[in-house]
């Protein structure tokens, strides 16, 4: 077809113009005369119907090139990645508080940024395209905006007040996109609400003539990475949760579950869990897997030149050609034999987490306790060890979770994130039971030490030989008591955590120390 030929002709120079994006050759799709472009997982597709509709008004090559300029710039500049898309959406949502309106605002903003970038930085016919596109609703406003900020006559006009305000936004300053999209959304808020009402009444949505922006544009890996970066960047858990809840349907449809990719529609996403999972991924540990033990005997390993003064006993007569001459004679260097140690891999870990009323509810605010426990969980699971969870509040009254050793990350996270908010008492029988379920597991306990039966806990720790990493949040008389009570035990390490940066560092440091040299823990 004509358009396919044009695409093939135009594509090399468009690619060069945009510095060779890693995109496959665009294709043509039939139908959709209202929508020029579709982007699905990096594949750009141009609508033949759209092309046919417009080709009387514009040169065919120019239409294709302009549409490709738009599509490629979305890929190369705005939003570039899923994290940026989420961030923009999140900021827009702060203004309009309604999912579809926020999505629309994000789409419009990204289009303005993209097209303005193209017009300013590249040789493009996007302005011509807009001149020939129908102008109604928000697109009329945007076209008027483009007239003002690009200095082109696009056959629009009007909406002076809105355009004046919109034209003051620095669209091409990436660092200011977060504040810019808020200003942008504020200005067009009324229009968004009107559009939304109209769509509710007519159940029909005006398509974006240059293509929609949705999760379909991204691969699962990109989504995974974007969520991780977003979790690290947001100010609080609520923001992350809101955004993920809004996009839950689309994420699940794509096969993205809390446990990661490819989990299928059956696994619903728990936004809180996902938040801690993604945040903890930013603090993961590098740990060696294969412990090596020296066997104690030497064996010949390699040759080195013999020098006068070195012993004759190690001379290799064969490689020395039977000669004892410096420069020709070789001797053996010997090395100690190595083999796998008696204990292979790394120990399992029992995670003891306090979820009493004095601790932060992890579903309301960022809980350092949960984050620390999540980091520890990740570290052990990565080493193919198992983790068990003892989540307690008033355990003697049943406010506890006892999760046996297993590899299931999602299950473990669910146990860690559970919040009881009651009193603080441990049932040591539970801990004893869990310790018996694995071979000398490590213990990772995280609490503010305001435990009613603290003395019993201290006594218990003083009796066991398992390696214990105790993390306490804040300092008080109980933490001092715990430190004093366990001072003499070499297998217990205690850390204080005051802010987010402390927990992962300390967890990493200590776990690294004893997991990197597993011989120590025998």
């Amino acid at each position, binding site marked *: 077809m004509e358009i396919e030929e044009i695409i093939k002709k135009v594509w090399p120079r468009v690619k060069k113009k945009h510095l060779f994006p890693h995109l496959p050759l665009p294709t043509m799709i039939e139908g959709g005369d209202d929508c020029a472009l579709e982007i699905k997982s990096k594949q750009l597709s141009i609508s033949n119907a759209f092309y046919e509709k417009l080709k009387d008004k514009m040169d065919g090559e120019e239409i294709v090139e302009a549409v490709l300029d738009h599509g490629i710039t979305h890929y190369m500049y705005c939003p570039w990645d899923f994290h940026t898309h989420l961030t923009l959406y999140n900021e827009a949502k702060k203004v309009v508080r309604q999912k579809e309106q926020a999505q629309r605002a994000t789409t419009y903003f990204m289009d303005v940024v993209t097209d303005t970038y193209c017009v300013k930085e590249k040789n493009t016919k996007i302005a011509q395209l807009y001149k020939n596109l129908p102008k109604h609703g928000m697109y009329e406003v945007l076209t008027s905006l483009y007239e003002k*900020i690009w200095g082109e006559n696009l056959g629009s006009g009007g909406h002076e007040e809105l355009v004046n*305000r919109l034209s003051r936004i620095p669209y091409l300053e990436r660092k200011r996109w977060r504040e810019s999209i808020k200003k942008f959304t504020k200005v067009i808020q009324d229009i968004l609400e009107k559009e939304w009402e109209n769509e509710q009444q007519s159940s029909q949505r005006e398509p974006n003539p240059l293509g929609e922006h949705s999760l379909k544009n991204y691969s699962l890996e990109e989504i995974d990475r974007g969520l991780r970066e977003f979790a690290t960047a947001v100010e609080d858990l609520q923001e992350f949760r809101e955004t993920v809840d809004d996009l839950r349907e689309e994420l699940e449809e794509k096969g993205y579950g809390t446990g990661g990719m490819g989990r299928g529609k059956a696994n619903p996403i728990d936004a809180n869990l996902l938040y801690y999972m993604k945040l903890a991924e930013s603090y993961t540990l590098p740990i060696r897997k294969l412990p090596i033990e020296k066997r104690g005997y030497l064996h010949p390993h390699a040759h080195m030149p013999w020098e006068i003064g070195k012993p004759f006993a190690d001379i290799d007569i064969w490689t020395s050609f039977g000669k004892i001459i410096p420069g020709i004679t070789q001797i053996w260097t010997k090395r100690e034999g190595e083999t796998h140690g008696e204990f292979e891999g790394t120990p399992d870990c029992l995670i003891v987490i306090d979820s009493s009323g004095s601790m932060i509810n992890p579903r309301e605010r960022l809980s350092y306790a949960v984050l620390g426990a999540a980091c520890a969980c990740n570290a052990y699971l990565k080493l193919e060890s198992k983790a068990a969870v003892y989540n307690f509040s008033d355990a003697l009254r049943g406010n506890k979770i006892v999760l046996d050793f297993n590899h299931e990350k999602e299950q473990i996270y669910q146990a860690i994130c559970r919040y009881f908010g009651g009193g603080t008492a441990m049932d040591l029988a539970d801990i004893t039971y869990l310790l018996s379920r694995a071979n000398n597991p490590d213990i990772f306990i995280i609490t503010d030490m305001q435990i009613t039966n603290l003395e019993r806990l201290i006594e218990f720790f003083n009796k066991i030989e398992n390696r214990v990493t105790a993390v306490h949040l804040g300092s008080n008389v109980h933490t001092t008591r715990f430190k004093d009570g366990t001072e003499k035990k070499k297998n217990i390490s205690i850390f204080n955590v005051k802010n987010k940066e402390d927990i992962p560092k300390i967890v990493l440091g200590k776990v690294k120390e004893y997991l990197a040299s597993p011989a120590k823990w025998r």
Partner: protein
Amino acid sequence: MKNPFEAFHQAGVRKREIPLDKILKSKEETLSTILKGYEDLLKNEAKDLVWLMQYSTVIKAYSIAEKGIEGIEYTAEDIEEFCYALDHSDQIPYLITGPAGVYISALCNHAKEEEIYLHLRDLTVKINLLGYRLPTDKKLIVEGNVGDFTGIGLDGGEFIIEGSGKNYTGAGMKRGRIIVRHNLGFNTGHGMTGGELIVGGRIKGLGKIVGGKIYERDQLIFPHEGIKPFSF
């Protein structure tokens, strides 16, 4: 030594300037000038970062603010940018809400536009002294919450607050109208001699009011049987 940048000697890039660049440049320049005016006000008035809220200091500060903004070509959007910069930007070394409010009031009162809309909902600080001496031909609409001494000395203008205020709102207002969508604090209308103060929510307490009218939730609460005008 060979010039390591040899290859770029003719790399003067074709820079396409679009009107957006000019708009933003002009905006930045205006904002810089406005910021300078504010800094001058602070230098004069807020020595050691302390500013005492007194009748005379407010008048003096307003006079300095007026001089500072003389000759600056700005729009209502520039005022809003300044408010945003107060809260977010590194450009402003310190924010003292009293002088800031006086300065913003001066900007509003001398703006070209008759109607000024300030979106201040995202600001973390509540600015005091907004709407000071708002004149007859002006309408100021603030979206968000405001601080103390809002609309004091109102001089005929209409001041709408799409949020809540704090204490001493409308103090000393002479004429005009203040509409507050939500709540106000104590000493509301203290020293007020005329005009209307209409509050959609609750008023925690009234000040010593001389004249004018105050409404709380559509009910006239001053003048009222229980509350008589005060004479200073």
